[in-house]
């Protein structure tokens, strides 16, 4: 061993999980299921739908992986059907991570 960091087998098999940032980081304003959100850390303003709001305010308060997120969304009576698609969820999470709205844990 030379001091290099080596992944062990458990890390390699670990399923990625995400968590929303601090709830105080976002100011919301919404009308009829469409929202604008001001993200305080970045100063950016985003146009988001109801599913996104549910993810950031409720579902991802605790860390979840993509499968858990899909399950949670399917339980939301008013969720957007498109967001239940795992590929779509992954795409949203990747984008939210880019924007700093969620963090990988």
């Amino acid at each position, binding site marked *: 061993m030379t001091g290099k960091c080596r992944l062990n087998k458990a890390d390699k098999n670990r399923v990625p999980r995400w968590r929303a940032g601090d709830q105080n980081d976002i*100011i919301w*304003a*919404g*009308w*009829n299921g*469409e*929202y*604008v959100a*001001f993200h*305080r850390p970045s*100063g950016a*303003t985003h*146009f988001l739908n109801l599913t996104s709001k549910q993810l950031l305010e409720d579902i991802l308060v605790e860390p979840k992986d993509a499968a858990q997120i899909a399950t949670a969304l399917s339980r939301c009576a008013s969720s957007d059907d498109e967001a239940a698609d795992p590929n779509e969820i992954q795409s949203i999470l990747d984008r939210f991570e880019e924007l700093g709205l969620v963090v990988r844990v």
Partner: protein
Amino acid sequence: MSVSLPCTGTVGDLSIKQFEDRLRAGIGLRIGPFNAHLSATPARLGPALHLLYRDYPLLADGSVYSFHARLDNCRRMPLIGKPMVRFSVDGQAPHEDMPAGQALPVIEWGMNLVIALRSHSYLMLHSAVVGLDDRAMILPAAPGAGKTTLSAGLALRGWRLLSDEFGLIRPGSTELVPIPRPMALKNESIDVIRRFDPNGCIGPVTPHTRKGTVAHLRPPDGSIANAASNAKASWIVFPRWVPGAQCVLTEVPKAEACMLLASNAFNYEVHGEVGFNTIVGLVEQSRCLEFEYSDLNTAVEALTDFAERTDD
């Protein structure tokens, strides 16, 4: 912020000669919320500014000014170079010298530049604003979308002109602050407005500018006299001039209107969270619509009829 001594009449109270003499030495004008100090040496500029700024209040000597703008004659090469003019503000020239024949649009655009770069105590929308009673219609639009022509038409039909270029809002407020200025009509719009209202006062026509042919319409009576009265945001109308189109007003979802307005604001990022809350407040308080039109007469009638039927 500026503090002014009492105004001492208007530009129109001076003869052209008196105004030219004072313009060469420097003259103070109240333009909306700004105390502007203007000085200019180019010939023929005095009569044009005297015409367009006829109703603007003169400031007393000793006023504290928001900015000092100058337009001076110069040449690329002494004695033999092409006559040019140099715009400067507070001793700094923000852009290259321009042909002397374009003196009037240069000083007008120069003042727009000063306002856009300096007025960060306001949230600034790139929009025209017109008023009906104490209510304001905000017309946000990219350059070339026809907002000046449309706002000129409305102002010539009884609406108050608050601005054809800047929607100024105190952060946290939902009131529009007037800054009525001569309206820069471009190319075909000049004749459109001449036909629309032959009694409208249009200043000299300047060809071959970077925006084509330009002429300025003096703000109609009442717009300057009421420049101290804010108007509460009531309508946000995104205009789209489409050749041959019928007038169509379509509701814009408020979240979408927020994003459009935020992207339209010159200095939205400067204001951060307060800017966001201000935009949300404006949208919450207003009807938000897209307006497609082609004929100016029909457009003015349609918007006026709509506004008069709209409750607060």
